[in-house]
């Protein structure tokens, strides 16, 4: 009898723990996923362990407008869109560039940030933008616009090869240890990395592609949320909150 009781308590506990996982998807909560290796858009603060950055402030402000509690998970870059598609999250904010390919899989909010790819290379490099890339190996974060651009350049013979890493930091490290010559990365992230690592003998050497735009990704079957997010974005822009967040992370311009 005692064993049966023990077993049923155990089973109930298991059910309760499993149930807790599901109940998180309840009402009043905006479940957001990001990849916090993209300073100044999203990163883990070294002291507090909190998720910080432009994107984080923006999505929290959007949650406030919508009256939703914002819960942000830091997951791998590669897993973001699959995790949105399988319903684990309501939306993604991770400096994701709006591309036609991605638009085939998910919906994007109105653009909330304009960015551009740049080249990061060892200091004193003769590379300037797309000039002088022949014979070089590019390190990139896998499945980013930097990866796509570098892959196209490599296919066209304008680059020797592409080394695809999981994180921006790994790609930068690849140049520092000499296995790659350049990193193709979004300009604000390059600037933030160089500012945070002043001892690294790296510099950024000019834009390499057309401007690109970041959007918040939402599941295609969730048009209601997409409209809500767009409305909240418009409100934040009108009220000046967007500008405040922008200035906090990028200064006056």
């Amino acid at each position, binding site marked *: 009898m005692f064993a049966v009781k023990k077993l049923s308590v155990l089973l109930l506990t298991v059910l309760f723990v499993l149930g807790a996982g599901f109940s998180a998807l309840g009402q009043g909560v905006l479940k957001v996923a990001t990849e916090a290796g993209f300073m100044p858009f999203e990163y883990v603060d070294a002291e507090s362990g909190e998720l910080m950055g432009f994107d984080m402030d923006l999505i929290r402000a959007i949650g406030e407008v919508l009256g939703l509690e914002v819960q942000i998970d830091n997951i791998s870059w*590669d897993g973001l869109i699959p995790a949105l598609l399988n319903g684990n999250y309501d939306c993604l904010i991770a400096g994701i560039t709006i591309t036609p390919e991605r638009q085939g899989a998910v919906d994007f909010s109105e653009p909330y940030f304009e960015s551009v790819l740049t080249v990061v290379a060892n200091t004193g490099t003769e590379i300037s933008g797309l000039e002088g890339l022949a014979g070089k190996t590019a390190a990139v974060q896998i499945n980013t616009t930097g990866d796509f651009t570098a892959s196209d350049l490599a296919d066209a013979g304008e680059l020797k090869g592409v080394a695809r890493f999981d994180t921006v930091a790994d790609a930068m490290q690849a140049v520092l*240890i000499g296995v790659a010559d350049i990193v193709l990365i979004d300009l604000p992230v390059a600037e933030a990395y160089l500012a945070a690592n002043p001892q690294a003998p790296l510099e950024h050497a000019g834009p390499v592609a057309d401007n690109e735009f970041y959007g918040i990704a939402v599941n295609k079957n969730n048009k209601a949320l997409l409209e809500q997010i767009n409305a909240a974005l418009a409100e934040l822009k009108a009220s000046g909150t967007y500008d405040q967040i922008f200035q906090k992370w990028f200064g006056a311009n």
Partner: protein
Amino acid sequence: MGFRWDLVFSSLPTLLQGAKLTVQLTSIAVFFGIILGTIAGMIRLSKGPLRLAAASYIDIIRGTPLLVQTFLIFYGLPSLISRPIPAYTAAVLALSINSGAYVGEIVRAGIQSIDKGQWEAAASLGLSGSQTMGLIILPQAFRRILPPLGNEFIALLKDSSLVSVIALEELVRKGQIIIGRTFRPFEVWLAVAVIYFVMTFAVSRLVNLAEKRVAVR
């Protein structure tokens, strides 16, 4: 949004390219792993001063994750020797050194499993220590070592996916790249799983065949 078989088939050429690298890396690591492991295993059983070194090698490598070892070799070693280590070399080093430690234990256990009477009989026939090891003990131990060795190689084949973190485009990495362009994880990971299974199944059949060949008739 049903299951897209076309995507499974269209991703096969790219995935097989990655599988080729997986097989290549694993084969080279198995080769060096056997050499390293046989040396380490025998030294560990010897009475020489190197015994402690062999034991430390096995303990440290088995006691730390292959992922961390890969990072240490790829990102750490270049600053020690102040020259870059290509990802391919780093991966071969990490996998070989890792495999060597496990093979070392397999070899040690195999040698120890041979009855002491064999040593005594060889000595009474006037064989020297190294003759006994080479002619009597190792051939018998080999028969017992084969099955766990097969296990180790199957494990290594799967573990080689870890070197994708240093930008080597083996099977798993190729899968990630395709998913990043198609956003269809299920189809692609399924294809990856099937390819891994075909490879490991082939290895286990080969090991079985080898076992039969060396079996006592």
